[in-house]
């Protein structure tokens, strides 16, 4: 196998992590192409979140390799992985509650990462315009001055997505972006996601099958840390193994 | 430096030094057990831990004075009564403190630390006002005085042995409570997953209060034991804080075995170094080594791998 296959943005090979003997992800391999939207589904505890944790450096892998555009991510620090172009949204919305929406977005603006850079960072017109633009995309342009603590659950999810968008990552990873949202919010989020997944690779974890069918290029079904099935939505949905462990109930 | 001693003298020195280390070990274990319960299981930093120990010591002093005055016939066994009194005095104060203070601060660990420091100042002043600023010593029953000659050169003090026996007994009792009683099961369940424990019907609020109370009670018993080897003053508790916390953190919060192993290694290191260096340098070096190891291995000697 070549070190890096230029047809893939992300190559995950033999990825394994064991927590005191329990293998939450077990010899997992999959490949993501440019502009692909990969959806990972699977029952609770299948290891979906853990896979994202491993790719973005939050959890250290026991063995395997994660290659992103020629960089081995498993040996890199979290912030270096972000700079390489990987963005990650957490399952529970994590925004800075004590800061305003504007400030939340500003802190994610990809500039002034060092101590010195952060001290000398200026809030110039380019920054303000970019924040305005992102805020419109995530439906929060009228709430820029509001503290994030006062946003609804759905708005916080959007804000976190906006914080990733402003960094313009090449690989975007979203963990259950519509969980806990109202129907109206869900529809708006689908619209938002469809808009932002066009010119980048995306990995989404989701349970909502209608939603998955709407956005997925390919689907990976995870079960007990291993791939149970992989392919287009139709193929996966008709796979008897998948129906048995996941869709069947 | 060894040339001046004969072989048998050297042997005796090492035996005595080793024994001194064992007494220090017992002291550390006694100090740390209560804290290991409170910090290890609840994550609460109780800066007044030393003052809970001192309360136990003062209770022992009171009991000894009362027995001397009114029940001189039973004086030889007063200490066992005193331990029970100490356990309940410190334990009840612990329950009260949890109810009035700690429970409001569970989500703010750093604030708990400051508030319990305030509590420790208040308790110190209470002790000073009630018992006076001078250190008090208890009268030790006759059978606990003197020492046991092992060989011509090696003698071990009986009160030292007594403290060691107590340390073992109390460790066993705490072990039993933690791993064999239903309270222990609930405590461990809560420390692993509070929400789930709540959901399956464990009364987490009451369990927390009881845990804090028992931890304080054990501290009281430890303080009671200390009266056998030293005197008690209002600010004596502060001297224990750093050692106690380091023992617990070094052992790995949440691991009883870790606490004991860490008490053993720290006490042995300190008493061995004391033989070669001045007392204060031995202390400095021991603390530096412990802190150094903690920097390399922040989770301590023994630890559970828990999800962030």
């Amino acid at each position, binding site marked *: 196998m070549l070190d890096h296959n230029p047809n893939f943005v992300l190559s995950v090979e033999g990825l394994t992590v064991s927590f005191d003997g329990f293998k939450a992800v077990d010899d997992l391999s999959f490949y993501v192409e440019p502009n692909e939207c990969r959806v990972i589904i699977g029952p609770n505890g299948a290891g979906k979140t853990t896979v994202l944790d491993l790719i973005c450096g939050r959890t250290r892998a026991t063995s395997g390799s994660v290659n992103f555009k020629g960089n081995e991510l498993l040996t890199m620090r979290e912030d270096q992985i972000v700079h390489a172009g990987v963005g*990650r949204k957490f399952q529970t919305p994590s925004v*800075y509650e004590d800061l305003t929406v504007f400030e939340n977005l500003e*802190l994610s603006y990809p500039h002034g990462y060092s101590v010195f850079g952060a*001290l000398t960072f200026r809030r110039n017109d380019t920054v303000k315009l970019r924040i305005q633009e992102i805020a419109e995309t995530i439906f929060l342009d009228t709430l820029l001055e509001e503290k994030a603590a006062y946003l609804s659950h759905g708005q916080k999810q959007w804000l976190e997505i906006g914080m990733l968008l402003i960094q313009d990552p090449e690989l975007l990873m979203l963990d259950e972006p519509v969980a806990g949202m109202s129907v109206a919010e869900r529809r708006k989020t689908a619209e938002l996601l469809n808009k932002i997944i066009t010119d980048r690779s995306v990995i989404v974890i989701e349970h909502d099958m209608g939603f998955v069918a709407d956005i997925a290029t390919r689907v990976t079904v995870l079960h007990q840390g291993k791939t149970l099935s992989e392919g287009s939505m139709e193929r996966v949905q008709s796979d008897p193994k998948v129906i048995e462990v996941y869709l069947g109930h | 430096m060894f040339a001046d001693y004969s072989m048998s003298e050297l042997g005796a020195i090492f035996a005595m030094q080793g024994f001194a280390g064992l007494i220090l070990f017992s002291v550390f274990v006694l100090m740390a057990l209560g804290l290991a319960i409170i910090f290890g299981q609840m994550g609460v930093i109780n800066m007044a831990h030393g003052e809970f120990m001192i309360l136990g010591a003062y209770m022992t002093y009171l009991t000894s004075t009362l027995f001397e005055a009114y029940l001189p016939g039973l004086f030889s066994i007063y200490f066992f009564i005193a331990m029970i009194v100490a356990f309940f005095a410190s334990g009840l104060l612990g329950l009260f403190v949890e109810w009035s203070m700690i429970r409001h601060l569970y989500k703010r660990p750093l604030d708990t630390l*400051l508030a319990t420091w305030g509590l420790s100042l*208040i308790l110190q*002043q209470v002790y000073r006002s009630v018992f006076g600023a001078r250190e008090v010593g208890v009268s030790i029953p006759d059978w606990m005085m003197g020492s046991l000659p092992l060989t011509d050169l090696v003698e071990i003090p009986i009160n030292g042995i007594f403290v060691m026996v107590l340390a073992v007994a109390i460790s066993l009792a705490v072990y039993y409570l933690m791993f064999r009683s239903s309270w222990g099961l609930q405590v461990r369940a809560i420390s692993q997953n509070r929400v789930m424990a709540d959901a399956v019907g464990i009364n987490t609020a009451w369990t927390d209060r009881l845990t804090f109370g028992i931890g304080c009670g054990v501290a009281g018993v430890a303080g009671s034991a200390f009266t056998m080897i030293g005197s008690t003053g209002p600010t004596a508790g*502060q001297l224990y804080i750093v050692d106690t916390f380091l023992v617990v953190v070094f052992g790995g919060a949440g691991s009883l075995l870790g606490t004991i192993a860490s008490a053993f290694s720290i006490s042995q290191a300190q008493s061995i170094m004391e033989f070669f260096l001045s007392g204060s340098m031995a202390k400095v070096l021991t603390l530096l080594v412990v802190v150094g190891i903690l920097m390399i291995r922040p989770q301590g000697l023994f630890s559970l791998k828990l999800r962030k």
Partner: protein
Amino acid sequence: MSIASNRLFTRQDIIGFAVLAAVVFIVLPLTLDSFRLNLFGKYLTYAFVAVGLVLCWGAGGILSLGQGVFFGLGGYCMAMFLKLEASTPENTAIQSTPGIPDFMDWNQLTALPWWWEPFNTLTFALLAVVAVPVMFAFIIGVAMFRRRVGGVYFAIITQAFAAILTILIIGQQGFTGGVNGITDLRTLQGWDIRTDAAKETLYYVNGVLLFSCLLIAQFVRKSKLGRLLIAMRDQEDRVRFSGYDVASFKIFIFCLGAAFAGIGGAMFTLQVGFMSPTLVGIVPSIEMVIFCAVGGRLSIIGAVYGALLVNWAKTSLSESFPELWLFGLGGLFIAVVMLFPNGLAGLYADHVAPRIDRLLSRKSADVGPADDTARAAAE
């Protein structure tokens, strides 16, 4: 803070700085005799530590219980210089080894230890006042923050450092002056620091230095780094996965706090005339936290008032009712945590600032509406 007004000073900030400047430079000198003024100068040296703690603890959520270490290191660096200047061969002619500090002679040292030598130069000593604490903070910070040790663990370990340094200083009395510390300091480059006039000058020097530190702190708070600290306190992982190396920010702010503390320590030595381990250990270190908490852990100006008020109360109460003082201090710790977590600054922002704002807005209504809110002042 609004988007438009990301200025270094909001109107409330300006009021805060101006009032504090008036208190420090005008009110106190005019109302206090020179003994009391020197006492308040001493209190103000603790304010350096408290301001550093606002940045570390209030903003960044890093509670250090070992700030006394840095205060002490700065103070000892200054004291070493002054002691060497005071220990001329003429002054120490009666010693068995003239020309070395008296406590060394008492401890049978016959030569100045090599690491005391550089402290013969003032420039080196002044540099060391900042550099030594910062170096220590850097080492501790790198070791702890790189390994993601934080919260209560960090607090306990910094406390252990305070204990270690105290034991070390007391134990090595031949090199450090032991439990008495370094005393009997006389002149700074020939200028007698013990006179009333000198003490008054030092009070003003102290005030100017304190305001310089406050300005630096204000700049940091209002920079993106200040907002990052708050973000890190609440959602450390989110900051990390937004591409920041969280540890380097924590190390920076911890070192800055140490630098402030070191300057405070040096000014303490100069104004009070000695430095001793009683200012280094566990108890003084945690008391410095309460100065910060009483003033308001989020307000740099509040921290200064906190240091002044608590120490003033301590001096007055422990003079007349020594028993009451410990009850008072203990109660203060509990009350400030349970009832007023934002301290004096919080009370000010809730009750006083809105009135001032209303008053000023009414006056400037025809010029344009005020864009500063009381909330900004609380930050």
